[in-house]
Structure formats: C-alpha cells, structure tokens
C-alpha cells in the first residue's frame, strides 16, 4: 500500500484567507464570528455567523469560468488556487498529469433560490441565464473546478452533511493508497449567504448569544446554547509519497488513517457509539494506539447534545491518556461542509508550529466535558500525530489521523 502525503494547503475562512493569517488567528484565539443584519430581516432566530467577504474573481478567471460558480465555488476556487500554488503544481502539470478531485459540498441554496425567483417573476426559464444550472447543483464545486484546473482524474462531490470535507479527504486518501490516483485535490466548501442557513435556523440549533458574538460558539462549555454557522472553503492536495518526492514536492504531513461509520439512529442527533467506531477504525487503519494521539481536534459544534456525545466517546477511548482536545469551531463557528477539511488545515498548522489552539469560551465544564482534557488557552506543545473528527446529519461519522512526515 502506498503512503499518502499532504503537499499543499489553501484556505478561505472567517479567521483568515492565507495559511499565515489563519495560523496567527489560531494562536491568538481570534474569533471570526459576527452578526449578519440581513438575517434579522429574513426572519432568522439567530443573526450570528462567521463573517466572510466574497472574493473578486474578475481578474483571476474568465467570464465563462466565473458564470458557473456559485458562492461556495468562488471560495473553493480561492482555496484551491492557493493550495496548488503551495504544492507548486501549475497549469502545465495539470495539463500533463491526471489529477483527481473529491470535494465536500452539500448545498447551493442561494443559486437555486435566485434562479427560482427569476422564473417566478419572468415566467421564462431562459431568463435564469447560462450559469444557473451549473451553480445550482450540489456538484457545482467539483464540476467547475475540474474545468478551471483541467482535471482529468476522479471527479466527484462528496455530500455527507457536516462530515463532507472529512470524507472527501478520506476518499482521496483511499484512492491514492490503493494506487488509483497519484494526486487528488480534496477539500470542503460552504456557502455563507442568508439563504443557506434558514432551514437550519428553523431547528432552533443556533446560538442566540447576540450580545457577545465572539463568545457565542462555546463547544463543551456548560452554558453553550447552540452552534454558530460559518463557511468558506479549504483545500488540501493529497499525493502519493513517491510521486511527490519524484517531482520535488515539499511534504507537509502524512495521512495515516481514515475511519468512518454511520449511527443508524437519529437524523440530527449524534451518538457516542458511532463516533467511537469511526475513531477506532481510524486508529486501526493507522496501525497505532490511543496513546499515540497527541491532540484531538474535536467536531464539537457548541450544541448541548452533540458535544456531550463526543465528550463521552473521547473519554471512552482516550480518557486514560488525558489526550488534549480542543474544538476550533469555538473560533470559526461551524463551517459545515467545509469543516472536515478546514480542521485538518488548522490542526496541521498547529502541528507545524508546535502549539494547540484554544477551545475558546470553554469556561465551565459540564459533567461530560469535565472528564476530558479540553485546552482553553493556547498551549505550546509538540504534536506528532493528531486525530480530527467530523460528524454529520444522518449520523455520518468520519475520523482522520494525520502525522508529521517521517521518511
């Protein structure tokens, strides 16, 4: 079996639009949460969201390429452009080599709604314009990026709710490990517009701590009152180790384990058993034990039940080692389809720079989080191996283990 390494990373998030900016935000425990006043007018219960501005692509790609891109595709383009640059992969390489893409995305609400509104008003579908269909489909991100970057390998969007980004990396890892691809672009993208989160807000799942937006996302804290939606995009370039060495690529880290499971129970509530299985599977795949994990980047979204179940499963597996845990969602909010990929970037940056980013706003433990070692202040620590969890609606669970590369 081949070894799978990360050779490039790119991020477009509410805590930074470059690896440097994101590293600094993580180290400083900086929150990217704010208030979107449009949400009040729209009828949201909570106006809290990760704050992100739309990128300007006019001078970067031509009109035809831009026309098919929905908001999340724009974010994904920026993250992927940067990741490819980081990996020193240019258009010449992409034209001469087969590169695949697995990217997490599970909605394109704004594109669908805006197209519908046009037809409802004009009673003529042609008035939607040529971009509507390409923006509206769930596979909008991979559909467009594969054309923009001339990709000729596996080409697929992974829709697995809040585990989409993580599963995309898991699949990229499996394809390379099994020799079916040498290089795969993996990632996750999430739209952040006012249309995209209305039905989620309808579940009363969001924090309403509007007086203190930076304190609203408080995973594992006793006084958490819900998640804060967020988004953007994160891209990682996964590559076969030998292939990467042959082209002189810099090795950032190694993907050593992927675990998955499905809860088979409630559509919106996670379960400790399912997450336990995913984590254990990842450990088995990596051929390591729980003692070998130096840091856990938790899924924990700041929901009362979700964080509880994850604390239980982390305690079951790692309690005896007191493994440090933090949820970067405390700073970024819940990046949903993007989160599984972005959190690998956040954790890899921590691993490169020898620190654990804080689970900010963790002030008072509850009876479950009291049993695990939650890091709520930036802590200097050498991390050789980390585990990252992502759990989604429908009970889909994904766990990834990344290690510092050791030739």
């Amino acid at each position, binding site marked *: 079996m081949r070894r799978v390494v990360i050779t490039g990373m790119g991020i477009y998030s509410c805590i930074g639009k470059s690896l440097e900016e994101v590293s600094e935000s993580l180290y400083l425990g900086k929150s990217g949460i704010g208030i979107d006043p449009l949400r009040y007018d729209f009828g949201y219960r909570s106006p809290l969201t990760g704050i992100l501005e739309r990128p300007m692509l006019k001078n970067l790609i031509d009109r*035809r390429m831009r026309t098919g891109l929905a908001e999340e595709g724009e974010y994904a383009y920026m993250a992927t452009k940067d990741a490819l640059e980081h990996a020193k992969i240019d258009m010449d390489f992409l034209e001469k080599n087969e590169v695949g893409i697995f990217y997490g995305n599970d909605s394109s609400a704004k594109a669908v709604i805006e197209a519908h509104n046009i037809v409802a008003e004009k009673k003529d579908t042609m008035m939607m*314009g040529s971009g509507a269909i390409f923006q509206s489909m769930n596979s909008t991100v991979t559909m467009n990026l594969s054309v923009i970057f001339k990709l000729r390998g596996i080409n697929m969007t992974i829709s697995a709710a809040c585990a989409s980004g993580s599963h995309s990396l898991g699949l990229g890892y499996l394809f390379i490990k099994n020799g079916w691809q040498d290089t795969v672009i993996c990632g996750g993208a999430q739209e952040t517009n006012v249309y995209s989160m209305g039905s989620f807000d309808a579940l009363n799942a969001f924090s309403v701590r509007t007086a203190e937006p930076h304190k609203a996302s408080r995973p594992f804290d006793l006084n958490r009152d819900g998640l804060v939606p967020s988004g953007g995009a994160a891209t990682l370039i996964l590559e076969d180790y030998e292939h990467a060495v042959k082209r002189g690529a810099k090795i950032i880290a190694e993907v050593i384990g992927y675990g998955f499971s499905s809860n088979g129970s409630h559509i919106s509530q996670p379960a400790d058993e399912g997450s336990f299985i995913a984590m254990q599977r990842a450990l088995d795949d990596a051929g390591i034990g729980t003692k070998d994990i130096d840091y856990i980047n938790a899924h924990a979204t700041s929901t009362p039940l979700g964080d509880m179940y994850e604390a239980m499963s982390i305690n079951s597996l790692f309690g005896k080692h007191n493994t440090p845990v933090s949820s970067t969602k405390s700073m970024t909010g819940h990046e949903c389809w993007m989160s599984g990929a972005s959190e690998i970037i956040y954790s890899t940056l921590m691993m490169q720079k020898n620190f654990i980013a804080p689970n900010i706003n963790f002030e008072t433990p509850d009876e479950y989080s009291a049993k695990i070692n939650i890091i709520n202040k930036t802590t200097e620590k050498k991390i050789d191996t980390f585990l990252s969890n992502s759990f989604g609606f429908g009970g889909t669970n994904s766990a990834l283990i990344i290690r510092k590369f050791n030739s």
Partner: protein
Amino acid sequence: MKREEIIRITNEFLVEEIEALPELLTEDASLKDDLGIDSLDFVDIFVIVERKFGFKIKAEEMADVTTLGAFYDYIEKKVNSDNGDAK
C-alpha cells in the same frame, strides 16, 4: 431607435458583460469564430437583450445571424418593428 444607438448599447454589453474584446467589434466579425460567443453565451445574451432592448430573442430567428453586423440588423428590426415583441 437609431442604428447608432443600437450599436452603442450592444457593444457596451458585449464588452462589459460578455467580456468581448472591444477591438474585435466590427460589422463583419463572426460572432462564433472572432468573438468566441458560444451557445452558453447566447443564453446570457438573450437575458441581456431582454433587459436592454425589451424584447426576447427567438432562437429560430438567429439561425442566419452569424456576424455582429447581422446581429445589429436583427436587433434594429425587432426594436423598430410594430409587430415586434417589444414590451
């Protein structure tokens, strides 16, 4: 509407919204081969023409419209026609 005005408005949207190169906008320019306008671009041009000139292009009427000059003529005919589809 005078032909000069039609040319001005058409060239403006071709440059600003379709991003055609201004120096290529000549009467004998081929829409497809010189200006690079493909079938997807035509869908967008349909939307823009409705907004700018108030009528809907009929695909079957565009079969012989292959040059920019022919396109100006087509718009002129539709906009100034008493039986046109102008709003």
